[in-house]
């Protein structure tokens, strides 16, 4: 695995873009939801940066995956936690890496089981392309192109810093 670009820089740039987006669209008190596990770390940063009053939510989409009949249940599943009313809320949904779009589909299905939000804004640290569903992020840190089997993963170091690691070659 090769270390990729500096995550701190990406986060910094992305939070600026996101603030801009929120202003443009007149979104005043959004709620932040991170998808486990990488998305939660990114969401924690954004939640702080945006100084959100609503507590942050965490989603574990294991129960909503569309590949259960092939892979079964993730044995490490943890409870989701949305400690606020989702009904009518503006939600910022955060993941570390977007690729096929299936994780986001599962996450949106799960959010709707808590209530009907006013709108969902999608934020991803990295966009790998290779989409299989018509889902696009509203705010991205970095667009990358990988060969079909390449993977990028966000890791948390022991000192708390985040790092992007890559497996597979750039096109």
């Amino acid at each position, binding site marked *: 695995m090769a270390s990729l670009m500096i995550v701190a820089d990406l986060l910094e740039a992305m939070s600026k873009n996101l603030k801009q987006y929120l202003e443009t669209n007149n979104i005043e008190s959004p709620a932040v939801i991170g998808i486990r596990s990488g998305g939660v770390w990114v969401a924690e940063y954004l939640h702080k940066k945006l100084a959100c009053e609503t507590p942050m939510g965490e989603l*574990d989409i*294991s*129960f*909503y995956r569309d590949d*259960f*009949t*092939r*892979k*079964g*249940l993730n*044995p490490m*599943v*943890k*409870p*989701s*936690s949305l400690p606020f009313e989702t009904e009518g809320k503006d939600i910022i949904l955060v993941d570390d890496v977007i690729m096929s779009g299936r994780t986001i589909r599962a996450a949106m*299905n*799960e959010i*709707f*089981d*808590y*209530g009907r939000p006013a709108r969902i804004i999608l934020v991803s640290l990295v966009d790998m392309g290779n989409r299989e569903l018509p889902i696009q992020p509203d705010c991205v840190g970095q667009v990358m192109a990988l060969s079909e089997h390449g993977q990028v993963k966000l890791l948390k170091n022991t000192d708390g810093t985040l790092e992007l690691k890559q497996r597979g070659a750039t096109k």
Partner: protein
Amino acid sequence: MEANLDMQMNKALSVQLNQQGQLKHFLTIDELPRTLLEEILDTADSFIEVGQRSIKKVPLLRGKTVVNLFFEASTRTRTTFELAAKRLSADVINLDISTSATSKGESLSDTLQNLEAMASDMFIVRHAQSGAPHFIASQVCPEVAIINAGDGRHAHPTQAMLDMLTIRQRKQKFEGLVVAIVGDILHSRVARSQIRALRMLGAAEVRIIAPNTLIPCDAESLGVSIYRDMRNGLKDVDVIIMLRLQRERMEGALLPSEGEFFRVYGLDEEKLAYAKPDAIVMHPGPINRGVEIASEVADGPQSVILNQVTNGIAVRMAVMSMAMTGQIAAKSE
């Protein structure tokens, strides 16, 4: 034949687990490793959260067919299994077999093979004969996930696991806990599964408290200490599990009367005071008030009986999705 014993133990294990050690049937707590029991509890924790949402349903078992096969009537257990299956988005069929095919002389194997041919993915089995779910899982329908919902006196593993979940919620861990199980141990599949689960999860001591007529032969071999006296047995325990007393025990000359049983082994406030002040009181239900437990205790602050019911749905959701996972993996083995 001693040399074959190990082989047979492994055989027993392989009925329940696939080659990767995942649950593919859930028949008994016996022989399951501690990690797997903890995985069931952890997964159930996630399902508890699902039960608190406005839409209490996840799409995990969408398109799967779950058949409730109750050869012995039980509205409560059947309902919680049904609800658990529905919350996993499965299609559920309830079959009251006691009044259906087998009474027309069709053999158990034939009935089950017919159901399997209807593309069933999971059977929830309640049967009066100990070992009936083992028989179905090993001989009749190995490719259908079999969940034991209580067989004879043998096992009631989902009940035991929901009890473990309840204990963990209140006591955080099992290490150091002293647990007393009170009443009709002899006929109780619940007690057998609870004892095994508590031993496996690390409880310090499991006590059984009952008259000699309701203690099974060689009960020490289960890994319990035996008490005939309620007050001695309850001294300083953390958890009290009361068992249901069936009325027919009086007819079999196992006990003289409900009244005498309640006087000696019924849990009232006076006897409860011998336990630790923060001891919790459990009961698998349905409760016989004034037979094994006094109303003021059943409804009192130390009772967690209603938590058990809530946890029952989550544990069953966990076990069902795990067994389905194990079946899926077994088919690709």
